[in-house]
């Protein structure tokens, strides 16, 4: 609960440019905030995706508050690392991470998917500062990251590039075109992260269109494959470090996660892929997360 009202120091820190390299405890606390944000904004909007955003919360927090070299106050800071969510539908976690990190006020989250807000249903470069390339059609993001990585190479720029993908998304052929390309050009400054939550819209990934053995697939496409528990922050940090240390090949972190993680009734249930909790369900969820809608929405609206 201590994190419910962020102090000036925290906000200042969050908005700092560069890599934050927060310690595990702070990351753990922030990941909890992210989950509270997600449930709160979805309860407000009554439209949007719950499951994927919650499975991305831990590695997303590690990415934004430890790994990435960015300047939220200056989204186009030339020194920045590039991050991209190829799974555009997880905007609740993307916007929450962005707002908590300082790209825009937390209160903007409460206008998610509305006509007035900038927080579009899927990430829109046209609307949201910090979103560099729009997304929403699955399978396209790794190609974009390939382009960013090639651009960095041409410019002899030390930028690192991070691309978050889904496991259902692995069914899109464009992913494998992009995988082949990145390995061919030895883009070792590129790091993929797969939200391996084992679910997609219509059910279990292995029932819908099995992607197993996923690590073997990426290995056979000549990537450095790192597997980890996508909810274990120390393991995630080790994975990022391993990716960073690996030369000559792009790395992919296969983050084993649970869809809907953090909300008991959503966990591991594909039916929560694309719907928001009803207000009463959200209240239950927020209680589980140690807060309430009243408290958390007040926090969001205050910043």
């Amino acid at each position, binding site marked *: 609960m201590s994190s419910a009202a962020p102090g000036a120091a925290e906000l200042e820190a969050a908005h700092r440019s560069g890599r934050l390299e927060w310690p595990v405890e702070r990351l753990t606390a922030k990941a909890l905030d992210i989950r509270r944000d997600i449930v709160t904004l979805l309860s407000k909007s009554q*439209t949007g995706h719950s499951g994927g955003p919650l499975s991305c919360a831990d590695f997303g927090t590690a990415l934004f508050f430890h790994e990435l070299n960015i300047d939220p106050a200056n989204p186009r800071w030339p020194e920045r690392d590039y991050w991209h969510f190829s799974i555009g539908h997880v905007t609740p976690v993307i916007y929450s991470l962005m707002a908590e990190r300082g790209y825009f006020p937390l209160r903007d989250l409460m206008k998610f998917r509305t006509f007035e807000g900038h927080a579009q249903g*899927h990430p*829109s470069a*046209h609307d949201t500062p910090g979103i560099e390339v729009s997304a929403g*059609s699955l399978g396209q993001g790794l190609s974009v990251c390939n382009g960013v990585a090639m651009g960095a190479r041409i410019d002899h720029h030390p930028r690192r590039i991070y691309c978050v993908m889904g496991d*259902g998304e692995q*069914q899109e*052929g464009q992913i494998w075109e992009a995988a082949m390309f990145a390995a061919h050009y030895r883009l070792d400054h590129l790091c993929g992260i797969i939200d391996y939550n084992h679910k997609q*819209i219509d059910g279990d990934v292995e029932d819908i*269109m099995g992607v197993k053995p996923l690590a073997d697939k990426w290995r056979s496409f000549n990537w450095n494959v790192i597997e980890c528990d996508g909810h274990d922050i120390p393991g995630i940090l080790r994975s990022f470090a391993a990716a960073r240390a690996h030369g000559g090949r792009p790395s992919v972190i296969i983050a084993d996660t649970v869809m809907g993680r953090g909300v008991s009734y959503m966990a591991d249930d594909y039916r929560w892929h694309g719907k928001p909790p009803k207000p009463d369900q959200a209240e239950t969820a927020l209680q589980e997360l140690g807060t309430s809608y009243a408290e958390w929405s007040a926090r969001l609206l205050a910043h």
Partner: protein
Amino acid sequence: MTATITLPEKVEMKKTREGFGRALVALGEQDPRIVVLVGDLSESTMVHFFAEKFPERFIQVGVAEQNMCGIAAGLAAMGKIPFFSTYGAFASCRAADQIRVTVAYTNLNVKIAGAHGGISVGPDGATHQAMEEISIIRSIPNMSMIVPCDYWETYKATLAAAKHVGPVYIRFGREDVPVVTGEHTPFAFGRGEVFAEGRDLTLIACGVMVYEALRARETLATLGISARVVDLHTVKPIDRELIARSARETGAIVTAEEHQVNGGLGGAVAEVVVQQSPVPMELVAVQDRFGQSGKPAELMDAFGLRAKDIVVAAQKVMERKRARG
């Protein structure tokens, strides 16, 4: 065969996609050749009704629209009547090359169901609001395309698509929309329907804009303007005869579509009009811009897709008609 449609004050609301989903079940019962494919969107496209009844003729493809289109082609080559379904944005764009080369060039009996057409998709935003399908699909030879206006017309369009031999694209929407037609309203593939007679101009619409056109007609009547309303559900092959006749008889046309203005229904009608009977036209459509998040009703207002926008366009076209003498 003309159905005169008068709207009650309060119309029933129903999803077009449900008309699609229910019709598939009816088709599945009648014809063992019907096979349904989906790309991880069973409930959104409402093919889950079919999946429950005919699991052995239902194929889940996962998130792989290109492959889905090719599979449908292979099934059609073996004499099946496959319907593949996903959001219209992905059906028409992600699989465009597969539709062109494998399906259309071979002229295979593949049916393509594009759900979530139009700005009325709402909060999902621009990427999911398909508004280019008419332009894309009607440029491809051998393709036919239907944009039904409501639940019942989608139901009938689905049956008609199955009956027509050759590739057909059906476009429908996400939200509850006014039920304008009834179970027995005439529907003939390839033919527009005059839903209401009029002398001064013709409103030609497809999809949910047929309802808006009918409402616009009521307002226009109060302004002393008599508008014919044509439901042009089949945008390809287009009913040239009806368009030409309407141009001749009424001397002015307003088209209305929940689609980009370039190359859509308005363009298709304009092509016929300039070749057959040039008259002033106004095009009510999305003005070459991407959609955004919002409530469906908000967006229909903001993007100028309401009866009132049709009324304004009608007044403008009437002025132009008068100015020509």
